[in-house]
């Protein structure tokens, strides 16, 4: 007999290449690249240093939150509260610094708020079995309301003694002219990618999304992991809020409104599966990049305001089309 048991056991079903070609992230990446090439030719202003600087910076806020959201989605959950949490965390930072505290105190307060909210969401979902959609929708309402309370619903634009430090944090470019937020995004994405692939925590996140019951039975601490995941999600929103505050230089109570759908879209376009069990950090970045490139192109191409929504929507659907065509062919 030609094939031995050992050979079979050593075999792998898919080669590296087949795996890459089979991933949605790859095909969305192709879509992004094609869009960029098209825009470089169609407009003079796309492939300029300044525009690329802007694009990369703009992408970061959605991308950073999408990293946390990807974890939640992999476990089969959803977090609708991220936009409001971003707002509340920005507001806490702003109010604390406005009151004369240093930037460190502000950041600690802001991050603390995020973790608290994440823990609240997570505990209700994991320990009391609430549907994630309901809990985080409730929190969407609550966090924004608390932001109003915290700030008395005013615009905060003076951040006390460390005002300039905060602006430098979010608006500067300390490294080879790359906007600071981009650096943070890259670092966070690398960390997320590492955690998902190389740690036990990451493995458990996937296991929970694949079969929560089986994960429980095999001794995965499902509840604790779930709480952690919602805390990470809120944390990522908090971090994005801090960076965005530094960039914008002002906080209003409507920042981050409606962001949750954009963030989830970024994660899903990047290959995360809302049914749980699949998703990557890199995919979250690609998904966010796609959305930003579309937005950017609307202005550059001078598309009529009324039709802009059609283009955005169309492009979102179109981005996934590549992947679907491949799948469709294969299943034939």
């Amino acid at each position, binding site marked *: 007999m030609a094939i031995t*048991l*050992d050979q*079979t*056991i*050593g*075999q*792998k*079903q898919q080669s590296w290449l087949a795996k890459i070609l089979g991933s949605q992230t790859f095909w969305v990446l192709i879509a992004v690249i094609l869009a960029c090439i098209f825009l470089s030719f169609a407009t003079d202003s796309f492939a300029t240093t300044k525009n690329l600087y802007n694009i990369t910076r703009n992408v970061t806020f959605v991308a950073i939150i999408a990293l946390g959201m990807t974890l939640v989605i992999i476990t089969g959950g959803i977090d609708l509260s991220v936009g409001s949490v971003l707002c509340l965390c920005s507001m806490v930072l702003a109010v604390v610094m406005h009151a004369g505290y240093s930037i460190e105190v502000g950041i600690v307060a802001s991050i603390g708020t995020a973790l608290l909210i994440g823990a609240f969401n997570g505990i209700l979902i994991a320990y009391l079995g609430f549907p994630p959609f309901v809990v985080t929708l409730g929190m969407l309402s609550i966090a924004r309301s608390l932001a109003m309370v915290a700030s008395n619903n005013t615009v905060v634009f003076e951040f006390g003694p460390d005002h300039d430090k905060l602006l430098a944090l979010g608006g500067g470019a300390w490294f080879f002219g790359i906007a600071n937020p981009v650096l943070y995004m890259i670092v966070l994405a690398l960390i997320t990618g590492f955690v998902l*692939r*190389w*740690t*036990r925590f990451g*493995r458990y996140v*996937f*296991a929970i*999304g*694949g*079969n929560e*019951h*089986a*994960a*429980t*039975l*095999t*001794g*995965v*601490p499902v509840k604790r992991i779930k709480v952690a995941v919602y805390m990470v999600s809120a944390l990522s929103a908090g971090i994005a809020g801090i960076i965005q505050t530094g960039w914008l230089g002002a906080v209003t109570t409507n920042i981050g409104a409606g962001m949750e759908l954009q963030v989830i879209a970024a994660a899903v376009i990047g290959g995360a599966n809302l049914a749980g*069990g*699949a998703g990557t950090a890199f995919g979250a970045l690609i998904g966010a990049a796609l959305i930003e490139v579309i937005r950017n192109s609307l202005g550059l191409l001078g598309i009529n305001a009324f039709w802009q929504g059609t283009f955005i929507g169309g492009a979102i659907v179109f981005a996934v089309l590549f992947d679907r065509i491949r799948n469709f062919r294969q299943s034939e």
Partner: protein
Amino acid sequence: MAVLELTNISKHFGAIQAVNDVSFSIGAGQVVGLMGDNGAGKSTLVKMIAGNFRPSHGTMQLDGAELIMHRPIEARQHGIEIVHQDLALCNNLTAAANVFLGRELRRGVGPLRVLDYKAMYRRAGEIFRELKSETRPRDLVRQMSGGQRQAVAIARTMLSEAKIVLMDEPTAAISVRQVAEVLNLIRHLRDRGIAVVLISHRMPDVFDVADRVIVMRRGRKVADKQIGASSPEEVTGLITGAIEQV
């Protein structure tokens, strides 16, 4: 001394009395065959031992100490391993990942310990080879055949030294060749002093490896005999109810 002792264990789901007042004990190195009709309550019984359900009534003792578990993982900490009838697999993970789920191998030190993929693939491969199962450790469980899935579930129990191994129809989907291996495995476990509960609908298998057979009918224990003192015909009669009780 008995490793595991069950006293008057019952379990109901709503109006359904799945397990009804069952008591028995198992000694170290004993292999007990647990038989019964479909829906007789066999799985429910072993799930209670595995910390999956809590009994509605009754007590369990492990090595003489009362056994109360709140989560399945506590069973494992007590040295109780189980092969679930529904296999408890995560379809989106590889065979190796499923085998090591909950006790991943890691390398490195301190907080920087990372998953040791290589070691896990190697060890899983060894176990599959031992089971003579053509299961590829690197493949996703989703795409595997019924018997390959079963092999993955069985492989889990071979990772650590347990006190009791509960096997809920481990041989249901696997082929002639691997059945022999699983039965061998059970004998090995016994020889190392591990108690085994084997649920099976295959009369020959039970009579082949078990020391004792317990028969359940409609949630009740209707027989508990040494294999030598019984026969396949008697057990069949007990299962179907042709023989009321012994």
